[in-house]
């Protein structure tokens, strides 16, 4: 069976002070139909850049994208193809952005914005688009969907705006949905609601979801697989249970240890240091300077992503 989305060696370079800086480095991933996969890492690891690159939203001076292949089902839609993602966005692939305040247009009602996508992509007439919009708004849990339909973004709270973004994505029932920190701005109960909605989409429409988040707790509840990204590269990729029970990459272990647990008052630990700016060119593993397990070879050669015990890991000295 063809994967819903398959990305082969995608890289993103941004113009920097000393030439192009590679912020996403040869990342490959596959999303099967109806699967939710988590992508975790700290801020500045390139998660959002990867998402924008897959969506084909980095064009011109926004960034230089290279990829061997980006395929939606059988359709090649990578940067080398003639139309890229243009024809597929809002229909076969959709994205929930992190910041709903800037993602929604302030001068149109939210209902108009959702139905505009439906009218353009599915050739629905005004009434049909309105019905489908109202349906997706009430599905996501708004008891007063008609009021929300008529509201301008500023009249909604941050949590409501984020739910509107999710409703917009669910209204088109895409084959692939990239959700970039979809619940970071939400409080826990609303977050639960939003996640339930994403899972419903995955279950009922068979949508493949890429869930980008720094909160591993969220991935645990929903995703079968997890990929850990650090400094533009995937450093570990495994089934979630496997990774939780025994993270192999020291960075994965650090991320897990930083999550506060409801069942325990044991103090959490942050990972020492911070993500090094990508402007600093380095040989060797980019995590080496923050890593307690670093050995000399870590500073000399960049580890590659290799299969180990049925999972992929890029580390010279795993746990």
């Amino acid at each position: 069976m063809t994967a819903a989305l398959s990305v082969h060696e995608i890289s993103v370079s941004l113009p920097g002070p000393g030439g192009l800086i590679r912020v996403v480095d040869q990342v490959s991933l596959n999303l099967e139909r109806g699967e939710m996969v988590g992508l975790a890492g700290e801020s500045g690891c390139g998660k959002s850049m990867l998402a924008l690159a897959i969506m084909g939203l980095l064009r011109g001076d926004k960034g230089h994208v290279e990829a061997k292949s980006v395929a939606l089902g059988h359709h090649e839609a990578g940067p080398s193809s003639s139309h890229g993602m243009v024809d597929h966005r809002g229909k076969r692939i959709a994205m929930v952005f992190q910041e709903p305040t800037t993602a929604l247009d302030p001068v149109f009602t939210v209902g108009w914005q959702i139905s505009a996508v439906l009218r353009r992509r599915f050739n629905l007439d005004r009434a049909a688009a309105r019905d489908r919009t109202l349906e997706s708004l009430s599905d996501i849990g708004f008891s007063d969907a008609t009021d929300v339909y008529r509201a301008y973004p500023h009249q909604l709270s941050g949590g409501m705006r984020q739910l509107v973004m999710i409703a917009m994505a669910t209204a088109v029932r895409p084959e692939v949905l990239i959700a970039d920190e979809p619940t970071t701005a939400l409080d826990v109960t609303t977050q639960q609601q939003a996640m339930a909605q994403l899972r419903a989409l995955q279950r009922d429409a068979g949508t493949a979801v890429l869930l980008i988040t720094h909160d591993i707790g969220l991935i645990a509840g929903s995703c079968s697989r997890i990929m850990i990204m650090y400094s533009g590269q995937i450093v570990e990729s495994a089934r979630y249970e496997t990774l939780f029970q025994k993270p192999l990459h020291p960075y994965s272990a650090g991320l897990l240890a930083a999550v506060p647990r409801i069942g325990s008052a044991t103090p959490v630990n942050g990972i020492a240091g911070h993500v090094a700016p990508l402007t600093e060119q380095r040989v060797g593993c980019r995590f080496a300077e923050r890593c307690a397990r670093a050995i000399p070879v870590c500073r000399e050669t960049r580890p590659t992503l290799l299969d180990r015990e049925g999972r992929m890991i890029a580390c010279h000295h795993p746990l």
Partner: protein
Amino acid sequence: MSVPSRPPLLEVKGLRASYRGRGGPLGDGKSAILALEDVKFCVERGQVLGLAGESGSGKSTLARLLCQLKTPDGGDILLDGKPLGTMSKAEKHEYRRRVQMVFQDPSTTLSPRRSIRQTLLEPLSHFGIGSPPERERMAIEALESVDLEASAMHRLPHQFSSGQRQRISIARALLPRPDLLIADEAVSSLDVSVQARILGFLNRLRQERDIAILFISHDLAVIRQLADNIGVMLRGRLVEYASADALFSHPAHPYTRQLLAAVPDPDPGSGSSPHLANNETALGLAAITAHRDESAGCRFADRCPEAMRECHRIRPALRSRPGSAAHVVECHLDPPE
């Protein structure tokens, strides 16, 4: 042991506050929205009180009242037993020095056009602390106490990451040597690794300086990292209050239990959200869309899976739980018969 009792550092008594209603398709056109209703609690020196609740529960309104950014409609705020309402202008000035705030979003807290040095020196000159050269030294010490280098003084906020900016905000709040720090969702916008370091830092601060913290967050797992006592707020009311241990071992209010269940847990074996799939839709959303009603019953009745008829008609009173006077809860269902 009978020591002449010293008043608590901060006491809040029967606090009420409201906002003017809003128009638009979602407004009900009514004049006032009650944001806080009869809230009371105490914070002792060196103690951390965690306040939990979802958006709209009145947590931030409470923080604003405590910082004198908003005037209450009723009730009293007492610092060392002295009501804010009876304080002279000079005493209020001193109150502002002693009660400092760290806000949620570090990128809007710091002025983008002022160097860190300007931001850090201002509270010192405002409160007349130290001579100019001493202020300079204190500002550098404050930066070092939050693990930043002295060279940060001459940089601008945009040159720092959000975690660093939040630490600068904390350094600024600590410079006037406050007795109470109010942290309103101070770590919720940060990613987990940075969040963990800020939490560790606040813990150290409490131990080293005997500073009290009012720690506001929607995430009980984060609160658990710091709090000695926890209050749970729901639509303007404090519906449960207990020591952290008691609240986590015996959560009494159904709302508290829902908040606990809503925290995602990284352990796949812990039975978190996917297994709740059938009833979870009953949670969250009512709070977002429901208009604030001033009905007589319990504020949680329309969302409560266990609500009885009584719950819709009679507002429950805040009562102590049997066998533990310090654990209070506002629920008809407690104690279970």
